[in-house]
């Protein structure tokens, strides 16, 4: 007998007696106020990230110092031209020298300050972890109220890879001292910038 059949057989034999129906999950009332952008920003701040407004003449004015200090910038968005072409990356590890990655979040979550990326948003998944710093473009209209609402989005059924980032990589494994940049990015900055309208 295969391991599969043996395991499934034991699960059937050992099934506990009784009815154990799957409960309906009610829609819980949001724990955040009506200003989703403010709620998102406050919560992301508590998780070690930060939120910046887009500038008028230069949308990237508020993160310009970060960008100017970088030697290698990988951009996955049309709004910013970097100097490392993500479309030409041969293997994921080649992005280890990226100083700043600029990516766009599919949506944000006000309850936790999270942003979601899929493989389509990142072009190369590893860039969101190997870069030293992450700049995330987020359309304020793309913020959902809470995690429950987030999981009703279709992205999770379709994407090969989907990930919530809530602040930068962090650890406190040594005596509880919080450190950003444990293995992944040292900082995560969300830049509130509307999506460019798709050409009809």
């Amino acid at each position, binding site marked *: 007998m295969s391991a599969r059949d043996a395991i499934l057989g*034991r699960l059937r034999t*050992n099934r506990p007696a009784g009815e154990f129906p799957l409960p309906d999950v009610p829609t819980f009332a949001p724990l955040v106020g009506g200003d989703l952008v403010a709620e998102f920003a406050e919560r992301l701040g508590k998780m070690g990230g930060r939120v910046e407004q887009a500038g008028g003449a230069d949308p990237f004015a508020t993160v310009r110092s970060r960008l100017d200090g970088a030697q290698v910038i990988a951009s996955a968005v049309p709004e910013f031209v970097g100097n490392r072409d993500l479309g030409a990356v041969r293997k994921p590890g080649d992005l280890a020298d990226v100083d700043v990655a600029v990516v766009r979040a599919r949506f944000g979550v006000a309850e936790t300050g999270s942003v979601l990326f899929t493989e389509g948003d990142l072009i190369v998944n590893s860039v969101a972890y*190997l870069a030293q710093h992450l700049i995330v473009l987020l359309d304020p209209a793309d913020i959902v109220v809470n995690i429950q609402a987030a999981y009703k989005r279709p992205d999770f059924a379709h994407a090969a*890879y989907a990930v919530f980032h809530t602040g930068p990589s962090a650890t406190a494994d040594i005596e509880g001292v919080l450190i950003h*940049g444990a293995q992944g990015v040292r900082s995560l900055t969300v830049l509130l910038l509307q999506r460019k309208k798709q050409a009809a």
Partner: protein
Amino acid sequence: MSADDLTPRQTGDMLHREVRAPSDESERGPGGERLQHAEAASKPIRADAPREPQPRGAKVRGNRPIDQAEAAERFLAAPLHQKAHDERLWDVRRKRDVAAHGIPEWEELRELASQIKTHTLTHLDRYLEQFEAAARANGVQVHWAEDGAAHNRIVLDILQKHGAKSLVKSKSMLTEECGFRHFMAAHDIEIIETDLGERIQQLDDEEPSHVVMPAVHKTRIDVAEVFARTLGTDPDNDDAHYLAESQRETTRPLILKADAGLTGCNFAIAETGTVVTCTNEGNADLSGNVPPLQIHSIGIEKLIPRVEHLGVFIRLLSRSALGSPITQYTSHFRGPRPGTEMHMVLVDNGRSERLGMEEFWTSLKCIRCGACMNTCPVYRRSGGLSYGATYSGPIGLIIDPTFNKRKYSTLPFSSTMNGSCTNVCPVKINIHEQIFAWRKVLAEEHQIPLLKQGMMKAAGAVLSRPAAYRAAIQTADSALRVLPRFAVYNPANTWGKKREMPHAPHQSFHAWYRQNRMKKGSDA
């Protein structure tokens, strides 16, 4: 202070220019406030100098019963470690309370989580078949392992087919259960742990002492010693930033050149064939997204039916574990990257047998948050390694004996039965009741050591006869006054250490009632 304002640190080439100076402590938010997310302590918990050797875990001798009390005694004899450990975990427990109280529907979420898990476990054959079909449709290669040895052989086979010699992995209690690292070392495969705490433990050749914070029993001085010995860091520099950065800089080249990556699994979604991992470091995402070969090891009890159920579990997990609203990364792996292979290994290793244990099967609901460990007075004062088993603390007491009744026969006695573990469990496992049930099972099967049998018999004889109990109390005012030094503080009773029993009242309630209420009653 933000990362922008950092003064570059001048300590040679190894460290990144943005690592802050040794005097700095935890990260700050934009307003200068001390941040509290991830495993962060709410206040500095710095073990005092001078140096104190780290107490080591239980002595494991083959199949012989683990002497948890002996290891606990050595932990207690290291007061700096004991105090730092106790304070650190109690701090996490308090953060958990604050996070839980911030959600009005917390109790409803616990009940829902419990019911979803109970339902899934009682229909697990169906959900596993659904998961397998979905994963295959996603282009994933699915494997089934009856036990830990089979898991290790399957992974080795995958690695050998690809000529892979090195593997980076994220923390996974399942692979600890399987003895994965030791097996792979014997087959000349280099395994690199990428969670900082787990990496510390790997370099020190120790098991993780906690399911979420593997090196929580170590002080920074211990870590400095381990890293000096294994990574060549400055032995006199115990700055946490320096130590963490040294680990990052030495691990990253290993991640970049690894032939394969492996993660564990927090939740597996039957409807979509998705593996979900929750980490603070992003190391599961590095393991899954950098090497050309990707493997996910899944305990079969990790299944949940649908994506929408994550809306319940994700809200519970990190709040219960660390008091943080969510982990920094919540990652959903569903299909392979173009040009690479993704493998998923479904591992039983005793779970299907446990499902048939009437009193113990609901322990399979566990989502490995560690809340029961943080709240447990025995765990906090004895350290996770004192249990000599993969799973420590209250959840360990009820899971470990299912793996080996003889070896872990003493563990269910390492409990005060205060029930706090049950109260904080996000999936409502009746942990303390199962601990008690295990004591009965082990007694009936004669797995209890003679000393504990004697203590239980003596206690049972007194407690089961109210008249004898009252007589015992009357003769010396209080049971606590006669029993303490003998029964409460004897070496077999680990949790009596470092805790003074409350002063017994001069008059027992029973005597007081007789003297006052009954007399008053007769006066009236």
